C-alpha cells in the first residue's frame, strides 16, 4: 500500500543547509473550509501546538508537533482553509506563499496532507491538481467517510490512490478514525534535499475585470477532476436529511429571523450577565492577591509601583478575561455547529444596504466584547474592500472596555428613576442609547466609506452552508486556551508597560519628602497642557489626564481617575470617586464625556492590530483621526444640548 509515495532520497545529511540540519520534517496540512482540517490538526497535535502570526499579516499560524511513534516527531502547519490558490484573499496568499517556501520563518513543506470532505468530492478535488504539481510527497485524506456511507454514497479509494499517484486514507477526524494512518504517513516523511518546490499552479492571477480565460481554465480543470471522479465510481451521497430539517427552521421566513434574534440576545446576555460572577471571582483573586503581596512588602516606592501600578493596572484588564472567554465559547459553538453561516445569510440583506456583506456579522458581533479579536475575525470577509470597511467600523461597536467607564459615569450622574414603568429606567435607557449611538455611527461610516474610499460594485456574495454538526468540546476547548494565552500576553505586555509609565509620571519630579502632589507631577502637567483643548467640552485637567491614559485602553480611565482623586483625597472608594466626579463635572459635561467614549478610538491594541491587518499606518491613522473628530464634535454638541 505504501509503495506510491515517500520516495526515500539517498543518504540524508550531506547537502542540507545549515538551518535545516537540526529541524524535523515540516508538513503542511491544507484543505477547503469546513473539511475538518482543524479537527484533524487538533487530533494529531493536541496540546502540542502554538499560535503565532504569519510575518506581516495577522493570519494566524498554527504549528504543532506530532509524535508519530516513539522515536519520531514531525512539525505540522495548519494552513488556512482555502478553495484555491489565487491569492484573492489573505488566507489564499499565505497558503500559497507557505507552499512555495516564500515565508521568512517557515521553510517550504517537506510533504503535504490534503484533507477533503468526501461527501462533496468533485468540488473539493479541485485543489488536488495544484497540490500534486508541487511534486512533494502527498497524502489525500478523505474525511467524513462515515457520513458518505451513512448517506448511501461510495467510492473506490484504492483506485483514486492509483489514479492520482498518492496515498489515500479514509477518515472521520471527529472521532479519530484514520488518524493513525495519517501518523504513519507523517513518520515516513524525510527532510527534502533539493531547493524550493515549483510554484503553485494557479488558475487566475488575471487582472481585475478581465473576462473569460480564467473560467475556461477552471472548466478544463474541472473536466479532468470529473474524469477521475467517474473512474473511481463515485456514488454521490443522498441529501443530508438532518441539515435539510434544521434549515427548514433556521432559514424559515418567520422562524429564521426569530431564532437569529434569540441567538444574538443569548450571546449578549451571556457577555453581560452570566460572565459577571466569573469576573467578580477574578477581581476578588486580583485584589486579595494584591493585598497579600502588599502586606508582605515594606512601604516604599517598590510596593507602590507593584501594587498601585502593575497590580491595579494589569488587574483591571485581566478582569475581562471571563467575558471574552464566554463570548468565544458561544462564537465557537455557533461556528462549529454550522449556524454562523446561516446567521450570515440572514444578516446579509441588512448589511448589504449599508454596503457590507453578511460575513461581517461575525466580526461585528465579536466587537461587542473586544475589537481586537473582532478585527482578526474580519478575515472571513472575502472581498478586500468589504473587509477594510468591516475593520473600520468595528471599533464603533460598544466593546466591554467601555463598560467600566459607562458604569461609573452613569452611576454618578444619571438618576436611578423609572422611565417606562418597571420596564426601563433612566440608567438603562442611557446605556442603551450609547449602544445605539455606536451602531448609528457604524452604519453612517460604512455608508460613507462604500461611497468614497472603498467604492466598489457590490461583490458577488457566495456563502458556503456547511452541514450542521455537533461541535466538539475538544476543538472549542483548545481554541479557548489559545484565546486566553493571546489575551493575557497582551495584558502582560501593553498594559504592563503603560501602567509603569503612568505610575512613574505621578512620582516625578520628586520632592525631598516623596512623590509630588498630583497637580505638580509630570502627569498633572501633561493634563494642564491639554486642558485648553478640552475646556469647550467642560472637562478639566483631571479628565484630560484620564483621556490621555485611556489612549492605552479605555478602562484605564477609571483607574486613572481613581489614582488622581485618590492621591488628592487619600481614598479610592467608588462612592467617593462618584462624589468627587459630581463636584468636578457638570451633568452636561458628563453626557459629553459618555459620547466622547462612545466614539473615540482609545485603544492602542486596536490601532496595533489594525496596522498589521491593513498592512500599514494609513488606515489606523485615518481611523484614529476620524473617530477623534467625531468624538470631539459629538461631545461638543452634547454639552450644548443637555
Amino acid at each position, binding site marked *: 500500500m505504501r509503495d506510491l509515495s515517500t520516495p526515500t532520497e539517498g543518504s540524508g545529511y550531506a547537502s542540507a543547509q545549515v538551518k535545516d540540519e537540526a529541524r524535523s520534517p515540516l508538513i503542511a496540512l491544507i484543505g477547503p473550509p469546513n473539511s475538518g482540517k482543524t479537527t484533524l490538526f487538533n487530533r494529531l497535535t493536541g496540546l502540542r501546538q502554538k499560535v503565532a502570526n504569519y510575518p506581516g499579516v495577522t493570519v494566524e499560524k498554527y504549528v504543532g508537533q506530532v509524535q508519530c511513534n516513539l522515536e519520531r516527531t514531525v512539525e505540522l502547519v495548519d494552513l488556512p482553509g482555502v*478553495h*484555491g490558490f*489565487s491569492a*484573492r484573499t489573505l488566507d489564499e496568499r499565505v497558503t500559497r506563499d507557505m507552499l512555495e517556501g516564500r515565508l521568512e520563518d517557515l521553510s517550504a513543506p517537506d510533504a503535504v496532507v490534503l484533507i477533503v470532505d468526501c*461527501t*462533496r*468530492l*468533485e*468540488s473539493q478535488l*479541485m485543489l488536488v491538481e495544484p497540490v500534486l504539481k508541487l511534486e512533494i510527497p502527498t497524502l489525500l485524506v478523505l474525511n467524513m467517510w462515515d457520513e458518505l456511507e451513512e448517506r448511501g454514497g461510495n467510492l473506490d479509494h484504492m483506485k483514486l490512490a492509483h489514479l492520482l499517484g498518492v496515498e489515500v486514507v479514509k477518515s472521520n477526524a471527529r472521532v479519530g478514525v484514520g488518524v493513525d494512518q495519517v501518523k504513519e504517513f507523517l513518520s515516513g516523511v524525510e527532510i527534502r534535499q533539493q531547493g524550493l518546490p515549483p510554484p503553485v499552479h494557479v488558475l*487566475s492571477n*488575471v487582472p*481585475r*475585470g*478581465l*473576462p*473569460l*480565460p*480564467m*473560467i*475556461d481554465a*477552471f*472548466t*478544463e480543470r*474541472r473536466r479532468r477532476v470529473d474524469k477521475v471522479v467517474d473512474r473511481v465510481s463515485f456514488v*454521490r*451521497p443522498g*441529501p443530508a436529511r438532518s*441539515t*435539510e430539517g434544521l*434549515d*427548514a427552521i433556521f*432559514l*424559515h*421566513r*418567520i422562524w*429564521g*429571523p426569530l431564532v437569529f434574534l434569540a441567538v444574538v440576545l443569548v450571546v449578549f446576555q451571556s457577555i453581560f450577565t452570566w460572565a459577571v460572577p466569573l469576573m467578580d471571582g477574578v477581581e476578588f483573586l486580583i485584589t486579595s492577591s494584591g493585598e497579600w503581596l502588599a502586606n508582605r512588602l515594606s512601604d516604599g516606592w517598590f510596593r507602590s509601583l507593584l501594587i498601585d501600578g502593575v497590580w491595579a493596572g494589569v488587574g483591571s484588564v485581566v478582569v475581562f478575561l471571563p467575558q471574552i472567554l464566554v463570548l468565544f465559547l458561544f462564537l465557537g459553538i455557533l461556528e462549529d455547529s454550522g449556524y454562523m*453561516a446561516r446567521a450570515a*445569510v*440572514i444578516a*446579509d*440583506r441588512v448589511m*448589504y444596504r449599508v454596503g457590507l456583506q453578511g460575513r461581517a456579522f461575525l466580526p461585528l458581533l465579536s466587537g461587542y466584547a473586544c475589537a481586537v479579536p473582532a478585527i482578526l475575525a474580519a478575515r472571513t470577509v*472575502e472581498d478586500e474592500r468589504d473587509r477594510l470597511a468591516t475593520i473600520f467600523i468595528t471599533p464603533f461597536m460598544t466593546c466591554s472596555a467601555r463598560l467600566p467607564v459607562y458604569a461609573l459615569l452613569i452611576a454618578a450622574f444619571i438618576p436611578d428613576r423609572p422611565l417606562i414603568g418597571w420596564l426601563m429606567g433612566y440608567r438603562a435607557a442611557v446605556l442603551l442609547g450609547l449602544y445605539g449611538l455606536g451602531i448609528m455611527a457604524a452604519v453612517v461610516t460604512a455608508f460613507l466609506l462604500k461611497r468614497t474610499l472603498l467604492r466598489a*460594485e*457590490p*461583490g*458577488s*456574495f*457566495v*456563502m*458556503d*452552508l*456547511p*452541514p450542521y454538526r455537533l461541535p466538539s468540546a475538544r476543538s472549542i476547548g483548545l481554541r479557548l486556551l489559545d484565546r486566553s494565552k493571546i489575551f493575557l500576553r497582551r495584558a502582560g505586555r501593553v498594559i504592563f508597560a503603560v501602567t509603569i509609565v503612568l505610575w512613574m509620571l505621578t512620582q516625578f519630579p520628586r520632592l525631598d519628602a516623596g512623590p509630588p502632589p498630583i497637580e505638580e507631577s509630570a502627569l498633572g502637567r501633561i493634563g494642564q497642557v491639554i486642558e485648553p483643548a478640552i475646556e469647550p467640552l467642560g472637562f478639566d485637567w483631571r479628565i484630560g489626564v484620564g483621556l490621555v491614559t485611556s489612549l492605552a485602553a479605555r478602562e484605564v480611565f477609571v483607574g486613572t481617575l481613581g489614582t488622581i482623586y485618590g492621591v488628592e483625597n487619600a481614598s479610592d472608594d467608588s462612592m467617593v470617586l462618584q462624589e468627587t466626579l459630581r463636584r468636578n463635572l457638570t451633568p452636561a459635561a458628563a453626557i459629553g464625556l459618555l459620547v466622547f467614549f462612545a466614539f473615540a478610538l482609545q485603544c492602542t491594541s486596536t490601532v496595533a492590530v489594525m496596522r498589521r491587518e491593513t498592512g500599514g499606518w494609513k488606515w489606523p491613522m485615518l481611523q484614529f483621526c476620524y473617530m477623534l473628530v467625531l468624538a470631539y464634535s459629538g461631545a461638543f454638541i452634547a454639552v450644548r444640548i443637555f
Partner: protein
Amino acid sequence: MGSTAPQSMSGLPKEEADVELRLGDIPLRQTVELVRIDLPADRAEPLLERGVLPGCRICPVRSSPTGDPIISVDGSLLALRRETADCLCVRLLSDFS
C-alpha cells in the same frame, strides 16, 4: 482550448428558441445546467472555486428569509444573493439528459 465551452447561444441545440433563463427565475427544486456566468473574472472566482462552473448542475433548494436563493451544487449548499443569481445564465435539462 475550450472549443466546447458554450459561450453563446449559437452552440446550443434546438430549444434555443426560448428566452435566456436566469437562475433567479428558476422555481425551487428544478435542476438546471449553468450556461454562462455574466460577471467579471474577479467576481466570478468565488463561484468558480466552489464548483459553480459552466456545465454544472444547479438546484435551488430553498429561499432565505430575505428571498435570496440557496442552491445545491455537487452536494454543497451555497447561499447567493438575488443579484448574483441574476447573473447566472442557465438552461433547463431536456428529459433525456
